[in-house]
């Protein structure tokens, strides 16, 4: 059995706990042991913190990584933003001895030391590269007959130099994982487009970012899918809460269900929508849930 420390970040535990519990349930079924990374903080949010001050960003990110080092485990994130922040900080500190020394001076004050012994993993690339599509297919008990719009998000694949996941313009690994559940990944216009949330943009210019996600939702609707499946609680929030904001501000209603991959996989493993928190989105998912009960699986 492999073991990982489970880094929660902010948005999953504090807005979408369904993603947290679903991850625990599916990883257990796949024989991956998760241990909570107790006392972890915000990653910190790369857009805002890298913009503010690099030392702050690095020292906070490295503290989270040292907690994982102290447990002797690689760190698992379920969020593209956390992945972007932590994987970049980890690589930077492993490569740059002088930077590591600077950061360790700060960490020393709180009794930690960055050693560079562990890796940072994202649930999607981990499932693809370490668990494998075949093993996931075998763990599926109730194949899901749904048409899915896969949303990779940006920081799972970019910048590619530091990701090693092949093409950023036309990746397929996430689609393969989605199809392993029995679902069909439907192609849609401008599939790799950004949701608009990152870089502090959602905070800075909400309306403009809503127009961006609105484009995405138009393309998804045009493709005739049953739901969106994402890999990141922040994209998830922009896609889900964003729909309620678009309705309020611009009077346009989409009603598209948004699931994190852990929730889709959970359905295919026989868990109920309620056990996975699929009913806890800000968009009303009740029709979608009816459909699933009525035999989408």
């Amino acid at each position, binding site marked *: 059995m492999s073991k990982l420390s489970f880094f*929660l970040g*902010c*948005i999953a*535990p*504090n*807005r979408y*706990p*369904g993603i*947290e*519990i679903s991850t625990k349930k599916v990883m257990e079924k796949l024989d991956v042991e998760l241990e*909570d990374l*107790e*006392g*972890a*903080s*915000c990653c*910190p*949010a*790369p*857009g*805002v913190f*890298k*913009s*503010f*001050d690099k*030392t*702050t960003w690095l*020292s*906070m990110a490295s*503290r989270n990584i040292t907690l994982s080092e102290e447990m002797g485990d690689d760190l698992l994130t379920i969020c593209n933003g956390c992945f972007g922040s932590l994987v970049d900080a980890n690589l930077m500190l492993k490569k740059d001895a002088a930077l590591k020394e600077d950061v360790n001076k*700060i*960490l020393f*004050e*709180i*009794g*930690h030391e960055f050693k560079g012994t562990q890796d940072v993993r994202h649930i999607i690339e981990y499932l693809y590269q370490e668990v494998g599509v075949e093993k996931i297919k075998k763990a599926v008990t109730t194949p899901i007959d749904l048409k899915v719009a896969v949303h990779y998000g*940006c*920081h799972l694949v*970019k*910048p*590619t130099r530091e990701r090693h996941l092949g093409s*950023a313009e036309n990746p397929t690994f996430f689609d393969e994982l989605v199809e392993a559940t029995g679902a069909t990944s439907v192609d849609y216009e401008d599939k790799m*487009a*950004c949701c*608009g*949330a*990152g*870089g*502090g*943009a959602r*905070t*800075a*210019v909400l309306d*403009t*970012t809503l*127009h*961006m996600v609105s*484009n995405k939702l138009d393309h998804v609707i045009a493709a005739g899918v049953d739901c969106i499946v994402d890999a990141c609680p922040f994209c998830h929030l922009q896609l889900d809460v964003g729909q309620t904001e678009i309705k309020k501000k611009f009077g346009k209603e989409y009603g598209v269900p948004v699931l994190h991959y852990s929730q889709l996989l959970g359905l295919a493993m026989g868990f109920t929508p309620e056990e996975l*928190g699929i009913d*806890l989105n800000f968009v009303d998912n009740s029709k979608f849930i009816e459909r699933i009960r009525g035999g989408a699986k």
Partner: protein
Amino acid sequence: MSDTIKTFKTSDLSPEFREEIFEEPGAEKITLCFNCTGCSSGCPMAEQEPEFNIRKFLRMANLGMKDELLNSPYLWYCTTCYKCQERCPQGVKNVDTLLKIRTIAVHNGIMLPAHKKVGQLVFNFGHAVPINDDTKEKRKALGLDEVPPTVHSFPDALDEVKKILHIAGFDEIVAEEEEKK
């Protein structure tokens, strides 16, 4: 789009600003830009807001147009989707360079109030998005602990975070004007 042509004197440009940007590893690659527009033409933010132009921003940076850049409201529009940086045939670090310019702005006291608030949340709670009552209910319904096992459940861990933020001078950066000094 503005239809007036602005003129700049070379004495208005800041070579020091350019040097400061180049402290970011790879930022000096903006000198290799041959203006192909590959970055700006694919930018999803420019599609929404044409005034935001990453190519033009990096040109301005290379010229040392400090005041114009630091005070531009569009400095804060980039979502860091990295599409531009992936595309650039010259290996320009478009996003990393933009983030360095933002950092210089912040250290010159220029920051959006909404971003400052996020910084304050992290300093006070260790989370950019802290727990709320609605989510506590949802967590309970799912059989999770009401409060997650993060800094939210471990006061000592939150103290550690506050301490490193203090050492890095971050509390000063996000303090409200009247709290400074």
